[in-house]
């Protein structure tokens, strides 16, 4: 009952009350200006807010059934062509269509998934890969791949055995796992190491 009232307020007061950025409350304000749309609620619905709170995210659906296994079996390293930036900076990066076509212009061209890519190329579009790993915005984590690669942390330590998967499956990474590893490696565990 009480929760219902709060939920109702969540939905309705926005329409009953003046907009959240209200005008005309202090004399110094400029008059006759439209309310700036600088702010929105952090979540559109209560459901979104609850999902964000519990960290519920939809599974990433990839446009192409990319097989990591096939590529790893053909001795392609993670950072060789597809995620090269992992050795250089924060983001590992996702391959562009051009990277794929370097090989697939000639390899396995008759495979239906590869033909999808050819179709993309013909339309002049890039593949809209969905990001699988990543921190929720409210975690405020600034993860940098490069120092981890330099410290010889294997990709699979965090990403799991992607080499045996088709499209990558998300693992739930927790702060506890980061800390355990950082402590074992005697890396910094100060908050600002990652959160800034």
């Amino acid at each position: 009952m009480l929760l219902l009232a709060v939920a109702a307020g969540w939905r309705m007061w926005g329409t009953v009350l003046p907009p959240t950025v209200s005008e005309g409350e202090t004399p110094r304000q400029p008059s006759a200006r439209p309310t700036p749309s600088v702010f929105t609620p952090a979540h559109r619905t209560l459901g979104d807010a609850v999902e964000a709170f519990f960290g519920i995210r939809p599974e990433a659906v990839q446009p192409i059934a990319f097989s990591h296994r096939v590529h790893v079996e053909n001795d392609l390293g993670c950072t060789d062509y597809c995620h090269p930036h992992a050795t250089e900076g924060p983001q590992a990066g996702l391959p562009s269509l051009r990277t794929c076509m370097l090989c697939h212009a000639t390899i396995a061209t008759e495979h239906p998934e590869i033909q999808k890519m050819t179709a993309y190329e013909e339309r002049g579009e890039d593949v809209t890969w969905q990001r699988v790993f990543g921190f929720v915005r409210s975690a405020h984590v600034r993860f940098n791949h490069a120092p981890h690669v330099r410290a010889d942390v294997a990709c699979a330590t965090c990403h799991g055995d992607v080499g045996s998967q088709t499209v990558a499956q998300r693992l739930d990474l927790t702060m506890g796992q980061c800390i355990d590893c950082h402590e074992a490696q005697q890396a910094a565990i100060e908050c600002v190491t990652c959160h800034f």
Partner: protein
Amino acid sequence: MTGKTAKEISNDLLRPVLDTSWRFYAAAVLLGALVVAGLAAWGHQMSAGIGVAGINRPVFWGFYITNFVFWIGVSHAGTLISAILRLTHAPWRRPVTRAAEAITVFALMIGAMFPLIHLGRPWLAFWLFPYPSERRIWPNVRSPLVWDFFAINTYLVGSTLFLLLPLIPDLALLRDRARGWRRHVYRLCALGWAGTPHQWRRLETAMHIMAIVIIPVAVSVHTIVSFDFAMAPVPMWHSTIFGPYFVAGAIFSGIAALIVAMAVLRRALRLEAYLQLLHFESLGKLLLLMSLVWTYFVFAERLTTWYGNEPAEVAVLFAVERGPYAGLFWAMVFCNFVLPFVMLSIKRLRTITGTVVASLAVLVGMWLERFLIIVPSLTRKYLPYSWGTYQPTLVEITITAATFAAMGLLFVLFSKAFPIISIWELKEGDRRAPVVAPGLVDQSMVMADRHANP
């Protein structure tokens, strides 16, 4: 004291519980509507952001923290007064204690809501609780807000038990009187109380220990609330006097709240025979005493600040006394000192109406006092470039009003479900010597009481 038989007492005091009048429904619906409005306002605030409240930079705390301090202050009504009166065997306490303890519990529940309401991200408030999590990081026990968490929890647990223990025999009484489904509920609540001499003695020992312990808890709670301010280097906050000053103010507003609640109960539940002029007079005298103590603290605080002439502090001092907050300040002085002093020190004015008027004024005055402690200091911090102002918004006002309604609603529901005057204690007191003199009774008299036969 009441000149009534045990049976009459039971009948009178159980009547409001067993019979339900339309007034109860009217009050419950009206107050409930306000509470729902407040909850909706809170929901809106969580959805849109805390910015729908009037707080800004540099006034980061406003109405919500004012309400927090005010309600925690009111909570000292009860347990502290009731515990002191019990320990001093003040015979006139008997019809008063339960109402006082109920005020404590409800005011604490409401007051403890405000630190949550005022949070920017209230859904993460559980981080104040030291629980094992994979993050391995626990609350910072150096923070006065964490002290608050511990102090308020201790006080809430203590005062709730202090209210419930002496309720058990009355629940047994209700178990025997009530009919239908309520009988089963009361039967469960009464925990199978039999009323053997053994149990009575245990209850008395337990209440005695609780009464002793609850006093240092209550003192510490409001001291810690004052530390929320005193720990920060903000002009006029960073003060060593704040602990006792806040405790005195808390007892002051607590007595006022108790008098108002008693007056309402007396009218609404027709308890004129139990809540007599004597009770209002005795509490009125206590109120007068606390008014003087409070005035002393205010004077001492403001004199030392003025004499010290520290620029940042004096800026706040004069902003309050003759600046934008002067109106509120002098209203506070009138409500907390002038009016109660006149109404309570002149015997002819110290009637029931007189004490109630004084108490209402004190409640207003003490709310203003909390506001004037919190806001003006924040508007005038050290660097004049960042001075600011504060204006409450509709959301804050709605939530504030809703908490007063919530207090009323909880009180109405409580007095509906349980006898608001402790029946067994009243009977026990009636059977002992009819001591009419108000005030504190000395030990020899109490002993005489105990051995006197009916």
